């Protein structure tokens, strides 16, 4: 006698226990501390904070540990936590020109006020596996600069701005929408697009940006400026009646300067793309700037070339890795019912096709 499978509840509990054991790995190896992840896997932490839309290195490190290094799973943990947090208010816009930069480079000007600062970058490391690291080697302390950096580090695009060579970005006081509080409706404005890209999947945004470079809505980008560093976050406190600094966050900002031929309404000038990402993430911020620029075709009176990176709906609806991974992986959930209905349909259609064939043969 057939007995239907039961005991899903027990199976789930067992699965979780097994998962925890696997997470720990070989118990004879020291357990990894959250602080170690936070300090030594900082790029992973940065990515989780950026795409989790929550600046908290400690929690991001915990999420990475809990997710066994699966960064999308870690981002998911952080996002789910983030939704439950109360909203106290909105900070003032951060002032990136007051950033204390640890890195600042421009591909457009050899030198500019504030100077070029190479900073801690992989760029010129030879990608040779460093076997000393495998041997737990301690590193020597890096040499400190003889004098501190200039405090004023003006944006490089401002120099072009002063000459009127680059498209103006007018200031507005309109409060940007919040993707996590209102449904995304299209067409979205630029603020919402940037928000979506800032928390979008690094790989997706990178792929989109790369496609523009290879000719799918090419926009000839130069990195006008890329800067990484801490900025202070300031917020009005209604009870106090004035604003206070509530902390510092590290961000990466990229402004691209893009070629532009001019249009019916605009004289020839440079245009801009913008990327801003929580933490250190050059790849993501440059990618974001390129995709932002590609999405601005309408506003700049350019042609829609039908390129994926120009398609706002395509980019915004598919860049979120938590949405994507959930929907992708849901196909492993039971689909007995829909599959059964397909089974019946295909059998019926085959029966009909078969009998049709037989009638034909009989007739011949």
């Amino acid at each position, binding site marked *: 006698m057939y007995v239907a499978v039961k005991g899903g509840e027990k199976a789930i509990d067992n699965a979780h226990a097994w998962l925890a054991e696997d997470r720990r790995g070989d118990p004879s190896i020291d357990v990894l501390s959250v602080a170690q992840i936070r300090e030594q896997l900082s790029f992973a932490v940065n990515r989780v904070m950026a795409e989790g839309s929550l600046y908290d290195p400690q929690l991001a490190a915990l999420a990475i540990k809990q997710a066994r290094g699966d960064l999308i799973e870690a981002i998911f943990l952080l996002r789910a936590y983030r939704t439950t947090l109360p909203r106290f208010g909105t900070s003032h816009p951060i002032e990136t020109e007051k950033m204390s930069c640890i890195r600042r480079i421009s591909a457009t000007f050899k030198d500019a006020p504030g100077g070029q600062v190479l900073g801690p970058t992989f760029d010129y490391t030879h990608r040779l596996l460093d076997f000393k690291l495998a041997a737990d080697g301690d590193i020597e302390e890096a040499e400190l600069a003889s004098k501190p950096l200039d405090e004023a580090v003006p944006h490089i695009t401002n120099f072009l701005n002063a000459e009127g060579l680059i498209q103006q970005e007018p200031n507005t006081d309109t409060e940007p929408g919040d993707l996590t509080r209102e449904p995304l409706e299209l067409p979205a404005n630029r603020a919402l697009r940037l928000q979506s890209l800032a928390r979008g999947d690094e790989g997706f945004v990178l792929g989109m940006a790369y496609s523009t470079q290879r000719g799918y809505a090419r926009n000839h980008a130069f990195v006008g400026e890329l800067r990484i560093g801490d900025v202070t976050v300031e917020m009005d406190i209604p009870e106090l009646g004035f604003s206070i600094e509530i902390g510092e966050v590290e961000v990466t900002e990229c402004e691209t300067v893009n070629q532009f031929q001019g249009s019916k309404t605009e004289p020839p000038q440079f245009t801009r793309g913008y990327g801003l990402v929580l933490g250190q993430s050059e790849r993501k911020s440059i990618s974001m700037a390129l995709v932002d620029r590609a999405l601005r075709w309408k506003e700049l009176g350019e042609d829609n070339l039908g390129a994926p990176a120009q398609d706002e709906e395509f980019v915004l609806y598919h860049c979120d890795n938590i949405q994507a991974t959930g929907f992708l992986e849901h196909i492993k959930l039971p689909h007995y019912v829909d599959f*059964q*209905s397909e089974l019946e349909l295909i059998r019926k259609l085959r029966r009909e096709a078969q009998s049709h064939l037989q009638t034909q043969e009989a007739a011949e």
Partner: protein
Amino acid sequence: MSEYNFAYLDEQTKRMIRRSILKGLAIPGYQVPFASREMPMPYGWGTGGVQVSAATLTPDDTLKVIDQGADDTTNAISIRKFFQKTAGVNVTEKTAEASLIQTRHRIPEVTLREDQILVYQVPIPEPLRFLEPSEVETRKMHALEEYGLMHVKLYEDISKHGAIATSYAYPVRVEGRYVMDPSPIPKFDNPKMEMAAVQLFGAGREQRIYALPPYTEVISLDFEDYPFEASKADHACDLCGAENSYLDEVIIDDQGGRIFVCSDTDFCTSRQDQTKEEAA
């Protein structure tokens, strides 16, 4: 779990969702955009249904959760546990005892009552999506009632296969106005949608809620000469003998032996219990 609000979502969010539900009930079949929250479960696994349930549940409710008609499939268990933990509500496997039923892919076999709510988990709420990928365009098509394309799809099915080749998520027209996706229920369940209970549909990832008030007219699209057919496997249940219930096919040996059993586990076990009682 005192650190979370009743049924996990904060009251602000629930109010927002309830407004969308009410709007959905006022315009049956219309997809209301709502600010779907990020839930502690993956998109595509019922986040829309869970949010609708969370906004609808009261402490006095009795909850039933089914997936593929069954109470003991893993995802149904997981969602039921979630509400036990965050809302502390009573749960049941008995359809008749439940005041709120969250479902994925099935409508229970037992006729639902006016004092019950059925919440569907919806993956893709847009019935026109696979004919027209752009959301901007499909919203326009709904607004202007441009549904010719829907029948073109059915026409193409018949010309190619001799029959309408849609077996689940079979599109319906609501009160002669909106064309609606009934979620991936088998078409066998479509006629049940004209029911006494309130039906709410939640699509979390796609940020849409839609609804059917009790006794709403729900017509499955078809042609006069190729009428809609609520089909099922041509068998009786091998466990309870029911001839009018939707069946799962189960492979029982290496020789391709198979039996057919009710997909609605509560329906099937109640019938088996009843037979045993009668025999005793």
